[in-house]
């Protein structure tokens, strides 16, 4: 406790300092007038000032407010000590910023008690300021962190520009972070996907689950996966990540390249409505599943709804927050309320609906995040695909001997290698059909020397596969070579497969699929999927060019 004693009378100063030392206050400084006190105070930063009124150069009334200003926000107690006893003068002490006064000759006990009391107030004031500083430090760092997180969210949840014109959506979080989310992404097969949903709760805690969902959704969209597979993956991911009490109600939609075939998986969200141009509600996609992140993978159901809509039909989706919007009387809007709006004004877009929500609320506080999505069925222009396919030409050659042929199916692995390593998502299905066709022909008719005609009857069909397995199990020799060349300039894969069989006459092959036989479908199908097919080597080598 540092005390500054200001008095022009040396004897007075001596008496005061002596008294203070007796009380245990040994850190005392002296000044002869106000000006000196001010200069000293700047240097020593006193905790309390004992101040005389009448002094030369600068008196107590003048210096008191200056000392107070110097102390800033922290409370600096100033106790006037004076021989003046008239009430007006004493009142003035307090008016100029003094906190107390003692008249001379001072009572030691009273003065000591006052010093202690003011010291307590000062330490409280110091504490408050310290806490304020801490508080604003934390507030700033939280703000800074929020900014970073907002930035990450903005990037993760970015909508592809080519989809912005196609799908109309609006989101309004109740807090600074959104527990609702909306994502959309093009599919390599010409259509697109969208996903919207609602994490339990709102704010940052709810929003945090959005990141893994966004990342997985994007990756799976690029691969052109089915929404049922997507939901399985998202469910498994969220089950692992989220605490038990948190889950994600969501709707996943895939619109195929026609722009009007709609696949929907709805888990725990309000009905999504399909409204035709006449305003009639033609279909409701109701929730058929539990939300994501609840069920174990073996209990999870990924059954989807498929519907063929007409151009001009509008698919309208909204989150829980919309249904549960309350008016001033606390009455909820409900599904029926939204439906009546849509029926009354079939052309309303998301912003019209949002305005209606605002009017309905009438200024009452919103409790949950709000999301509205509308897709109008339309012919989709081809999306400009930023394919990140490799630009390096390369070759893969597989030489399979009879051991490797017997061991399980090399084709799935080859397809995975080609499509995932090269960024050639979206062609995996067609490529599988082509390569597995070529490979199975090489095995069945080359290495194993089986005749397809066996498949002409029902029993023969199964006989064929039984014989195939039997021959395969007993296979003692034979090879199949697969050569895949990737030519990025021509954007093709050249696939060549040779087998150790005795070959066949390519002229004998059926050229069309226009028959009911359960065999002989392979080559006509290949010629539709590939640019060219060429047999050589007496039929035991086949080369196809597959356009990517």
């Amino acid at each position: 406790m540092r005390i500054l004693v200001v008095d022009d009378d040396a004897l007075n100063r001596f008496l005061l300092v002596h008294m203070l030392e007796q009380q245990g206050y040994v850190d005392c400084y002296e000044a002869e007038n106000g000006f000196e006190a001010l200069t000293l105070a700047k240097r020593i930063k006193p905790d309390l000032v004992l101040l005389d009124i009448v002094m030369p150069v600068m008196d107590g009334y003048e210096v008191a407010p200056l000392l107070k200003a110097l102390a800033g926000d922290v409370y600096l107690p100033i106790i006037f000590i004076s021989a003046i006893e008239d009430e007006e003068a004493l009142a003035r002490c307090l008016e100029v910023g003094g906190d107390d006064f003692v008249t001379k000759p001072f009572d030691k006990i009273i003065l000591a008690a006052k010093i202690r009391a003011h010291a307590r107030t000062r330490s409280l004031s110091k504490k408050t300021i310290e806490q304020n500083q801490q508080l604003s430090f934390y507030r700033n760092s939280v703000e800074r962190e929020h900014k970073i997180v907002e930035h990450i969210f903005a990037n993760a949840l970015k909508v592809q520009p080519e989809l912005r014109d196609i799908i109309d959506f609006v989101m309004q979080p109740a807090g600074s972070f959104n527990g609702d989310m909306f994502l959309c992404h093009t599919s390599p097969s010409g259509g697109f996907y969208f996903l919207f949903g609602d994490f339990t709760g709102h704010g940052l805690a709810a929003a945090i689950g959005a990141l893994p969902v966004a990342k997985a959704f994007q990756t799976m969209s690029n691969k052109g996966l089915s929404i049922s597979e997507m939901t399985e993956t998202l469910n498994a991911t969220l089950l692992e990540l989220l605490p038990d009490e948190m889950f994600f109600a969501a709707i996943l939609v895939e619109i195929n390249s026609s722009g009007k075939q709609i696949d929907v998986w709805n888990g725990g969200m309000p009905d999504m409505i399909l409204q035709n141009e006449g305003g009639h509600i033609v279909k409701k996609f109701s929730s058929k599943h539990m939300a994501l992140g609840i069920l174990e993978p073996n209990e999870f159901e990924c059954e989807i709804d498929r519907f063929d809509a007409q151009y001009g039909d509008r698919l309208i989706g909204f989150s829980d927050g919309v249904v549960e919007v309350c008016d001033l009387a606390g009455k909820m809007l409900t599904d029926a309320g939204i439906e009546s709006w849509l029926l009354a004004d079939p052309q309303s877009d998301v912003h019209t609906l949002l305005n209606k929500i605002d009017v309905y609320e009438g200024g009452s506080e919103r409790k949950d995040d709000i999301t509205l999505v509308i897709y109008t069925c339309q012919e989709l222009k081809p999306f400009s695909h930023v394919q990140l396919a490799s630009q390096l030409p390369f070759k893969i050659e597989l030489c399979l001997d009879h051991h490797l042929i017997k061991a399980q199916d090399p084709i799935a692995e080859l397809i995975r290698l080609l499509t995932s390593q090269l960024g050639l998502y979206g062609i995996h299905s067609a490529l599988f059909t082509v390569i597995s066709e070529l490979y199975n022909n090489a095995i069945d008719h080359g290495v194993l020397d089986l005749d397809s005609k066996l498949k002409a009857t029902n029993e023969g069909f199964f006989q064929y596969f039984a014989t195939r397995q039997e021959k395969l199990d007993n296979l003692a020799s034979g090879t199949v070579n697969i050569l895949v060349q990737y030519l990025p300039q021509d954007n093709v894969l050249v696939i060549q497969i040779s087998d150790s069989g005795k070959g066949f006459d390519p002229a004998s092959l059926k050229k069309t699929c226009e028959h009911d036989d359960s065999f002989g479908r392979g080559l006509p199908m290949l010629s539709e999927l590939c640019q060219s097919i060429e047999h050589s080597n007496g039929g035991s080598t086949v080369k196809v060019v597959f356009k990517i």
Partner: protein
Amino acid sequence: MSLEKEFSTDGKQLTIFIEEKFDFSKVQDFRIAYNDQTKKFTSVVINLQKTEYMDSSALGMLLNMHRSLSDQVTSFKIVKCRPQVLKILQIARFDKKFEIL
């Protein structure tokens, strides 16, 4: 592993759910799935929602099923196929034998 299937409540419709890969390795499983004598179903639905990969023997299997059930079943449907798979079914003109939805 056997294929997942279910009957409608009246037992008239059999739905078979095909997995990610529909190729010759499913020959037996697929036959077992549709050769169910417990119910007299008259409609078969093949759900291809999960199927990404299909080869020509799968087409053969579908046609073979069609042939062996045609006395008993009047409606054959293939539903919820992926765009890529749909393309293969279209190339193979499967719409002549199956209702593709």
